[in-house]
């Protein structure tokens, strides 16, 4: 059930106090099941790219998301809610086809037994029409909600095809943060990394540094995002950033090769690198991540 976790990443995270992450795949660390006093937990699904067609990359493109839905439904303890951190659908130039893919995606995730679903756009959903179709079918591209003492912020860094959050949304974020105590627990959800993970692969947000600067005065902030189709863990100061796996194809490690080409399907290890995660809150800003691989059976 658990995916490998980079020990160096864990140690870096573990050294910062607030935002400590326990990874169930790491020997000696508390798993979600073993960790005491879970306040609540949610599930993060990301990058399902519904409509993608590439048999060499994923011959099970039409079943992978459905498998994940079934696996989430099979959890012994249902999550409080489920977040989708973008690229729900694969891009298309055809506005009608884009909406068709979004409707099909909605029909699939309607089978989730948990009814509290929170959607964010990715650039494949929103960059070609500035989020118009996404807003028609899923609602606002940025918003906030509160859950059991934690303030969640969904931030849109994809409706601008140049990957900017933009001045208007930055002002909205500043006004929202101004209402919070500096030690309030905050989770920021977004699609692209807010830091320069691999600019040569477009794995960045052009004004992400301004978002991070706004968050820095807040003591308990954790970021969950997608876009890069793999687990990745990074710190900017005291803020932890956790990237999620995809539900369509894995991508190579940041900057590890000249092109960011998808990792090809391995018939001997179907669904390798594809999955989703549970996130459990334990205390002020401690989150336990539990990675689930999509099963081939």
């Amino acid at each position, binding site marked *: 059930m658990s995916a490998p976790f980079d020990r160096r990443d864990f140690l870096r995270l573990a050294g910062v106090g607030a935002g400590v992450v326990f990874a169930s795949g790491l020997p000696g660390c508390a798993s979600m099941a073993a960790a005491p006093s879970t306040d609540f937990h949610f599930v993060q699904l990301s990058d399902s790219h519904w409509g993608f067609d590439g048999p060499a990359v994923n011959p099970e493109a039409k079943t992978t998301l459905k498998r994940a839905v079934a696996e989430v439904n099979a959890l012994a303890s249902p999550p409080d809610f489920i977040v989708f951190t973008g690229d729900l659908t694969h*891009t298309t*130039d055809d506005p009608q086809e884009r909406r068709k893919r979004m409707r099909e995606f909605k029909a699939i995730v309607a089978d989730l037994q948990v009814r509290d679903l929170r959607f964010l756009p990715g*650039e494949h959903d929103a960059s070609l029409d500035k989020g118009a179709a996404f807003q028609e079918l899923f609602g606002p591209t940025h918003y906030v909600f509160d859950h059991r003492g934690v303030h969640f912020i969904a931030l849109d860094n994809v409706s601008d*095809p*140049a990957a900017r959050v933009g001045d208007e949304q930055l002002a909205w974020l500043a006004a929202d943060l101004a209402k919070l105590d500096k030690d309030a627990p905050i989770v920021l959800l977004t699609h692209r990394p807010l830091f320069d993970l691999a600019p*040569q692969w*477009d794995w960045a947000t052009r004004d992400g540094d301004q978002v991070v600067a706004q968050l820095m005065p807040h003591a308990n902030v954790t970021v969950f995002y997608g876009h890069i189709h793999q687990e990745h863990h990074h710190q900017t100061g005291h803020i932890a950033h956790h990237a999620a796996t995809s539900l369509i194809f894995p991508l190579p490690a940041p900057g590890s090769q000249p092109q960011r080409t998808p990792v090809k399907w391995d018939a001997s290890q179907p669904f390798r690198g594809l999955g989703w995660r549970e996130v459990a809150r334990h205390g002020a800003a401690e989150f336990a991540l539990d990675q689930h691989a999509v099963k081939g059976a």
Partner: protein
Amino acid sequence: MDRRLVLAGFAASLVAMATRAAADGQPRRIAVVARKFVFIPNEITVRKGESVVLEFTAPEVVMGFFAPELGLRALIVPGEVAKVPFTADKVGRFDFLCDVFCGDGHEGMNGHLVVTA
């Protein structure tokens, strides 16, 4: 007409234009077309210390040019020429990419700027 012939003719005209510009003592102008989902040319060679102006056009949709290691960036709007003056101060092979999402194929739209000694 064969697409390769068109591209070859286009490249030859670029070389001629660049040669003329260099002979005038002005920065060499290098025309680059950004179309779905390729830069033409996608490999640009300059000499260290040579002053050039990269002149980008995009006949279809808004595109971007970004060479992060060189700090070069431009927004390429159809109907306009985006000019990027550049004098290389280090030898190497540097990645560039389109950093404005332009569709299915955007992720493979990139190239190299090669600086020779």
